[in-house]
């Protein structure tokens, strides 16, 4: 042991290897001392609590969350984000079908009317899907997070003259009349901020979404085939030009959620992993070669983008999910 220690000081030798045993040794020595020290440490916060609030948590009021959700619900429905508008402009330039060009022009004019007159881009103002990244050092005060979000949806959809498309039960089918409850996906993340995405999702495109538990042997070719086939079958129904969210890997439910989460990414941005960036490009070519075109009436632009979100998965599994978004790819985000 002593020999190893001395050797570690010479720069020619691998430091990491030599250091490890030294660290283990030190930890083993210190361990009993730590246990003794632990007691006074535990007592400290109790004393602090008695003295008054010294919480390191950043407070965010439920009311503020509701206000922001209400505003974003309206803005998402009136005001198409730049990434979508730019993708539509690019699509207009690339489309060769005359009917397809006409549709791109209508969509751009529609977006301008909606923004200027504060009218919904599409009459189907969707299920209110909300993604939340809650910093673990943030604390929601004065109410519950989910209730605040639903309050925001209720207000935004009512005050904004947005359509109420939510049924309280899938089989008894009675409209809740205020578009609640929202579909809320919350993650706990580092930091003390709360980030929200409001993503109204129409029924036409949502209904064309699919998931498959492929065999690992199906591999990347199986994934391509499934994605292309889903878009071909969807044809005109999800209002092409579409944005295709693809979840690959994970468990069954994680894969589906990832397909939707993929839609949050800015259209036109490259996937951070070059392997998936290439696959996205190839899938986009395959999809556009289907010839579905704007509104399914035939054309060279069926999809504006393909976004993939991959996740680790089981040795026996290869799940793939396709969540299609229409050209009314509504999304707004805010950080509180």
């Amino acid at each position, binding site marked *: 042991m002593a020999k190893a220690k001395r050797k570690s000081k010479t720069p020619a030798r691998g430091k990491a290897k030599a250091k490890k045993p030294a660290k283990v040794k030190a930890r083993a020595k210190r361990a009993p001392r730590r246990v003794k020290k632990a007691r006074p440490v535990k007592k400290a916060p109790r004393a602090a609590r008695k003295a008054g609030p010294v919480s390191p948590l950043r407070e965010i009021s439920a009311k503020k969350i509701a206000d922001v959700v209400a505003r974003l619900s309206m803005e998402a429905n009136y005001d198409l984000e730049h990434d979508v508008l730019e993708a539509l402009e690019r699509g207009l330039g690339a489309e060769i079908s005359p009917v397809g060009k006409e549709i791109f022009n209508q969509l751009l004019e529609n977006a301008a009317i909606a923004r200027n007159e504060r009218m919904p881009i599409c009459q189907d103002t969707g299920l209110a899907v909300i993604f939340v990244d809650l910093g673990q050092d943030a604390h929601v005060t004065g109410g519950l997070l989910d209730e605040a979000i639903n309050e925001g949806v209720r207000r935004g959809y009512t005050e904004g003259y947005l*359509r109420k498309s939510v049924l309280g039960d899938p089989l008894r089918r009675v409209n809740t009349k205020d578009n609640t409850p929202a579909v809320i996906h919350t993650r706990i993340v580092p930091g003390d901020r709360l980030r929200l995405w409001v993503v109204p999702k129409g029924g036409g495109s949502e209904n064309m979404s699919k998931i498959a538990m492929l065999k690992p042997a199906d591999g990347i070719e199986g994934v391509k085939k499934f994605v292309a086939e889903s878009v071909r079958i969807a044809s005109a129904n999800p209002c092409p030009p579409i944005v295709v969210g693809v979840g690959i890997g994970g468990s069954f439910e994680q894969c589906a959620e990832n397909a939707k989460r993929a839609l949050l990414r800015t259209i036109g941005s490259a996937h951070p992993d070059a392997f998936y960036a290439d696959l996205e490009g190839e899938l986009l070519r395959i999809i556009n070669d289907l010839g579905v075109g704007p509104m399914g009436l035939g054309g060279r632009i069926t999809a504006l983008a393909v976004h993939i979100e991959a996740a680790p998965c089981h040795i026996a599994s290869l799940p793939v999910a396709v969540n299609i978004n229409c050209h009314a790819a509504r999304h707004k985000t805010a950080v509180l």
Partner: protein
Amino acid sequence: MAEYSMTAPLKPEDVDKLRAGDKVNLTGFIYTARDAAHKKLVELIKEGKPLPLPLEGQIIYYVGPSPTPPGKAIGSAGPTTSFRMDPYAPLLIERGLRGMIGKGERAPGVVEAMQKHGAVYFAATGGAAALLSKRITAAEVIAYPELGAEAIRRLTVVNFPVIVAQDCHGGNIYREGQRQYAR
């Protein structure tokens, strides 16, 4: 592909000359109905009861508009997916319905009724709902107000832009167009 301006309701000769891919600007009166209203209409026909709207020569637009804001004739009003109305459409066509406006391809049963009785299926641009609502100058609920967005409305339209998607001669732009641009 021709371009026409037509008056709604439609005459049999209007329907006859339209071909898949033609552009049509519609002016006149059309009716709205979607899933729930279709179910009720078909029930009334089967029970032999009178309908709340005339069918002869008429056009039904598959739409559930967003709520009407103050000062506007109607909220945003783009087409909904048509295949959900496929089980009901043949009976309405048999009773005189001449046109339907929606999005997405129709089932063989609907096409058969269109060919047999002379009816046309138009596609409006899905999601161009603010633009389309500007071409609707008046809207009046004429039946089932309790259905909200799904109530039957009579719309006055001016140059309402649609494309002939499936005609009464078997033409189908979804099939033909997609084949043309596939690689």
